[in-house]
């Protein structure tokens, strides 16, 4: 186990020794600071409370982090093929599945780290500018099952749900990276998944077919359970548990493809 951690250490080194990682880090810090400062300058500090702005900024930064994590997932495996270093990596006394797992873990750790930074920055900067509001109005929608509850519970639940969707999107990108060795495809399709989710679920909900409920896209919009109390498909009522189960199935499927293909394929050219 200590030995396996060394593989993760290696992957971490390859992530954090690259300047681009710190450019990404800069974005995650700067974007919320800029938004808060702009709002404070233009509308004054009474217009919004710290929680509302934190929610807004977090939802933006989460999309950024998803994109960054997908870029890392794409680099992590497809990059090794492009650089040719995969040949040096796979000729060590480690099974291919261990090596792939260490890469997957390092990408998830990257995503967790950036989420933690996002939470810390959005909380701190907004408290610093707008003051701390213990019982904020306008943060939790009336329709939310958490309405009237603590802002901490609400923010915690949003981060959890956003993180779950993010894991699925990153796993999707990782699959393209590991199984198809294409970082472009991995990044492109994952961003498509990230951005077009709500559009496609809107379209899908227009038809009455029952299989719509099993399509991946709508279930990535987990926030709808928290904000409106209902599922992401207006005409097809689903529960949070159902959405999580669907996501879990896709999650397993994506990983199955990644591992099977990566562990079996010949490394040539």
């Amino acid at each position, binding site marked *: 186990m200590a030995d396996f951690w060394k*593989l993760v250490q290696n992957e971490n080194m390859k992530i954090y*020794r690259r300047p681009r990682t710190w450019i990404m880090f800069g974005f995650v810090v700067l974007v919320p600071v800029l938004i808060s400062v702009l709002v404070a300058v233009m509308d004054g500090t009474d217009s919004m409370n710290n929680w509302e702005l934190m929610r807004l900024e977090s939802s933006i930064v989460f999309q950024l982090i998803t994109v960054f994590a997908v870029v890392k997932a794409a680099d992590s495996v497809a990059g090794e093929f492009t650089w040719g270093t995969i040949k040096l990596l796979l*000729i060590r006394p480690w*099974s291919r599945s261990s090596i792939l797992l260490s890469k997957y873990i390092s990408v998830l750790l990257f995503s967790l780290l950036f989420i933690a930074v996002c939470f810390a920055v959005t909380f701190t900067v907004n408290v610093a500018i707008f003051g701390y509001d213990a019982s904020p109005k306008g943060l939790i929608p009336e329709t939310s099952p958490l309405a009237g509850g603590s802002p901490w519970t609400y923010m915690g639940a949003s981060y959890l749900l956003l993180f779950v969707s993010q894991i699925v999107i990153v796993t999707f990108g990782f699959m393209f990276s590991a199984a198809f060795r294409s970082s472009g495809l991995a990044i492109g399709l994952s961003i498509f998944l990230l951005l077009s989710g709500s559009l496609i679920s809107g379209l899908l909900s227009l038809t009455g077919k029952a299989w719509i409920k099993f399509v991946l896209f709508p279930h990535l919009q987990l926030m709808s359970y928290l904000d409106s109390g209902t599922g992401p498909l207006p005409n097809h009522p689903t529960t949070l548990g159902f959405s999580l189960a669907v996501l879990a199935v896709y999650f397993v499927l994506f990983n199955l493809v990644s591992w099977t293909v990566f562990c079996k394929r010949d490394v040539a050219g």
Partner: protein
Amino acid sequence: MSQAPIVRLQEVTKRIGSRTIIDRVSLDVQPGEVFGFLGPNGSGKTTTIRMMVGLMSLTSGDITIAGHSVKTAFRQAISRVGAIVENPEMYKFLTGYQNLVHFARMNPAITKARIDEVVELVGLQKRIHDKVKKYSLGMRQRLGVAQAILHRPSLLVLDEPTNGLDPAGIRELRDYLRLLAREEGTAVFVSSHLLSEMELMCDRVAILQQGKLIDIRSIGAQAESSSAAEEVLFEVDQPDAALGILEGQGAGRIVDGLLTITADRDLTAAVNRRLVEAGIRVYGIRKKTKSLEDQFLEVTGSDTIG
């Protein structure tokens, strides 16, 4: 040569689709031996090497390294191997040292002292903390060798190791490989199409063509077989007259202005004596040795890439 071989290829075959890339190749490499793997481009050298180090699967046959099959006991087999497959690609955004740390972490028990020792061995002390993207090809090659020998492998596999090296670098690498084989008993399996280079470096060479092993020969044995009759060239002032003198002395002929006869050592001396006694000026006598290149072309013919 009675030791257990460090590498054994048994009827190794690789098919991709309907094409047979490697066709029933069998060979053994002994510990401490520098074994050359020769073949024209596209003959399957790199494919064979990729199968040896587990980057490609075998269609049939088996490869064992120190007795462990790469198919069933990959981790045991590969832990004895250091390799550079094709170009020594390293992480360009890391320093040379970070690259070595990276690969050191993947093997058990490689100390910091060992990394320093290897760095010194390949002569990269001054630049090891620079980013690899600033390295020249020769320096990358050295770093490639460094990562391959970190864990003191019993078998070093090098694919076209002299690609891109200058003559000094090639010579250095050759000396170093010889040293490894002699001092540490490391077997070196090296592929190349640079025949003259292989001649200087290897104990034995195997020649591969269109996926088939067509010959394995000892380089040393070639040089020793000097007592056999060979083509001998005489550089003389009057080739035609000389040929006349040697009438009855067997098959003499003139090639490029040189008197050429087939003779062993004694006959060569006798011929020289007769020529001198007949007043012919003999400027030089040399054996027409076949270089490995000649032999190689002889064996492979001028076949096109299959």
